[in-house]
């Protein structure tokens, strides 16, 4: 790939391809949206959304995240009259993350402006079919929204630095847009802070390292991520522009955080929630909960797993290396490499690990892998075409196996504490018991007595008279009883019949099979 990056394709082709990629990525994310067992985190998010409808957003600094995801879901579902989990179906919530995943793939076309179209197509396909991105697009958690905002921020920040470097007067527009996106990221999930810091550092460092000592072109003609002109960025005017842009960005981000956390001013008490979260989040990140060794992410990405699950994660770093080689003369390749490497090291160093945190560094790695895949394809040599085609087939097969066939298999490293398919049997049996009670589903009292009962609130969402206890209540009401293994002996009294159901691997709940009629 040379340094000349003149765009010669018709103007309509890029948005048309972006639309096509978005559509394809969305279709790939549809299977299983309704049928896959609801993860505990999704169930909790659904009930937080219920709370948002009832009384507004209340930030819980230790375990939960910012309001953006809930506010977007509420803005769409509210006007449709869907305000309570009982009215919701899995696809209604997972549809949001599927759309975010599809938009993420399509936004590559905007974020990598001035990159050759073939490179953008390949990077978009890499994000569109990558197993981790498809998998977490099918789970109603914050990660895909965060990644979408991150990629948009990356594109906006590239433009901002270009404008500052070339002393363009329009830098403030990009600063405002970058600030809005950064603010939305911070209001989505707390991990946005280190991710943003390292992404910004990577872009600035790449621009500075890759500034061309021999470039003679006029500053205004420099591409968004082409070599920075000699001396650009070092002049007082450029430094002033950068300082002004940083101020605008920070101010805008702060304003957006305040607006989103307060629900646009309706809940002023939530204004500084994010700042109060710094302590709890730091202790969480360095604590013993979900603590794994430093090499865990590498193992999750590259180590083959059992149970016949294919794993082609190793292809990403290999293709990414090809991408870095192809982009070695440009700041983009270096920026993406630094971004992926620094975030990988940062998250690996933290004891707290979950597989969806990998997305922050898999995003630049996948884009880089897409660029490498495109470079291979562009060589038009037989061996490189075979390698590129094989890589595509392997990644596609892996995505299908991981996201569909083994979606809730505990051996699948993407399936972290997955809910069990046995929940469907439990739901059916509870429905059968309720049908025998007076008043049926709307009147029967369901008592869940267990120390670990999620995602049962989602499973039982259509039972309005359901209560949850972590210790047995003094009096057990007639009706349906679900007990954790720790209380089943106490509750059965030696005579009642309880049947076990798996709610997650290694976690069981017992249903009383002979409830007295109400």
């Amino acid at each position, binding site marked *: 790939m040379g340094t000349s990056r003149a765009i010669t394709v018709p103007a309509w082709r890029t948005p048309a391809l972006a639309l096509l990629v978005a559509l394809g990525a969305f279709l790939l994310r549809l299977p299983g949206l309704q049928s896959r067992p609801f993860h505990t985190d999704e169930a909790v998010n659904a009930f937080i959304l219920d709370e948002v409808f009832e009384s507004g957003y209340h930030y819980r600094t230790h375990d939960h995240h910012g309001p953006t995801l809930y506010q977007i879901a509420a803005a769409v579902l509210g006007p449709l009259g869907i305000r309570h989990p009982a009215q919701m179906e899995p696809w209604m919530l997972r549809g949001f993350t599927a759309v975010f995943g599809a938009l993420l793939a399509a936004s590559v076309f905007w974020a990598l402006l001035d990159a050759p179209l073939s490179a953008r197509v390949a990077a978009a396909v890499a994000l569109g079919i990558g197993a981790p991105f498809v998998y977490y697009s099918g789970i109603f958690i914050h990660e895909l929204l965060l990644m979408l905002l991150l990629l948009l921020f990356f594109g906006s920040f590239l433009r901002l630095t270009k404008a500052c470097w070339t002393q363009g007067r329009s830098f403030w527009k990009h600063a405002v847009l970058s600030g809005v996106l950064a603010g939305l990221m911070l209001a989505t999930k707390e991990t946005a802070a280190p991710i943003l810091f390292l992404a910004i550092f990577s872009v600035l460092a790449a621009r500075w390292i890759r500034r061309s000592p021999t470039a003679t072109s006029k500053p205004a003609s420099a591409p968004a991520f082409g070599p920075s002109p000699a001396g650009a960025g070092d002049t007082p005017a450029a430094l002033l522009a950068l300082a002004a842009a940083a101020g605008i960005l920070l101010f805008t981000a702060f304003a957006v955080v305040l607006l989103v956390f307060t629900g646009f001013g309706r809940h002023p008490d939530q204004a500084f929630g994010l700042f109060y979260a710094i302590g709890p989040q730091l202790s969480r990140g360095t604590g013993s909960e979900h603590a794994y060794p430093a090499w865990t992410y590498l193992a999750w990405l590259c180590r083959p797993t059992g149970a016949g699950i294919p794993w082609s994660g190793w292809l990403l770093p290999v293709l990414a290396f090809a991408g870095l080689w192809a982009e070695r003369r440009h700041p983009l390749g270096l920026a993406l490499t630094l971004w992926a490497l620094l975030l990988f090291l940062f998250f690996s160093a933290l004891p707290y690990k979950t597989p969806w945190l990998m997305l922050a560094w898999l995003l630049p790695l996948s884009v880089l892998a897409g660029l490498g895949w495109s470079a291979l394809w562009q060589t038009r040599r037989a061996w490189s075409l075979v390698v590129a085609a094989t890589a595509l087939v392997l990644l596609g097969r892996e995505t299908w196996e991981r996201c569909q066939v083994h979606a809730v298999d505990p051996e699948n490293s993407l399936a972290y504490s997955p809910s069990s398919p046995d929940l469907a049997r439990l739901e059916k049996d509870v429905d059968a018991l309720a049908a025998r009670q007076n008043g049926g589903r709307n009147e029967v009292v369901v008592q869940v007595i267990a*120390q670990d009962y999620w995602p049962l609130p989602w499973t039982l969402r259509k039972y309005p008279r359901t209560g949850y206890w972590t210790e047995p209540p003094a009096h057990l009401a007639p009706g349906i009883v679900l007990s954790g293994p720790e209380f089943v002996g106490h509750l059965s009294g030696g005579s009642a019949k309880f*049947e076990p159901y798996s709610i*997650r691997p290694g976690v*069981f709940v017992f249903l009383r099979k002979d409830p007295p009629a109400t």
Partner: protein
Amino acid sequence: MNHLALRSSFLLLAAAALLPFARAEEKVPLKLQLPKPMFVGTPVPVKLPNLETPRASGRRPDFMVPKGVVNLALNKTVTSSDMEPVLGDLAQITDGEKAGDEGNYVEFGKGKQWVQVDLGAASPIYAIVVWHYHSQARVYKAVVAQLSDDPDFIKDVVTVYNNDDRNVNGLGEGKDPTYIETNEGRIIDAKGTKARYVRLYSNGNTTSDMNHYIEVEVWGLPAQ
């Protein structure tokens, strides 16, 4: 003050007069506010490949033992790999108290730990029953039960239970299932093995790396 007392009396009388009418009002079902679910964070995965599916409740099937067996461990001397437990005293392990209340268990340090009961004399043992901790659903890892006449468990050691599938204790790989702790305790079939000492190993649990014991019973025929 008198006026106030008079007014209060009138109000009380009026309320009393209205009481029958109030009673005659239409009744509606009492709608109780049931406790809402508490929000939790991402659950930590439990990876136990040989976890036993809990038995449907009802009475546990009888475990058959010879007539005349007694709990040989009751109030017998207990030693352990950690002679200064984090919580509790070693004597609690054989004191006959099996409630899961706070303070009624002995906590040992992280990783591999063992407790050992000296029965006083070699006796035929038919069942070992162990309660690690049952006020929370958890699984104790690498549970191994051994019998021997050697207090150091070097020679003539008989392993009667071993669910250490990855051999983290270094006593050999075990094929027995892991199980969720309940108030029933775990019955281990000792098959009439004659021994004086009973040693039980564990290596943390699914909630923490610590080890716990509420009670250990050893059912056998008293030595002649």
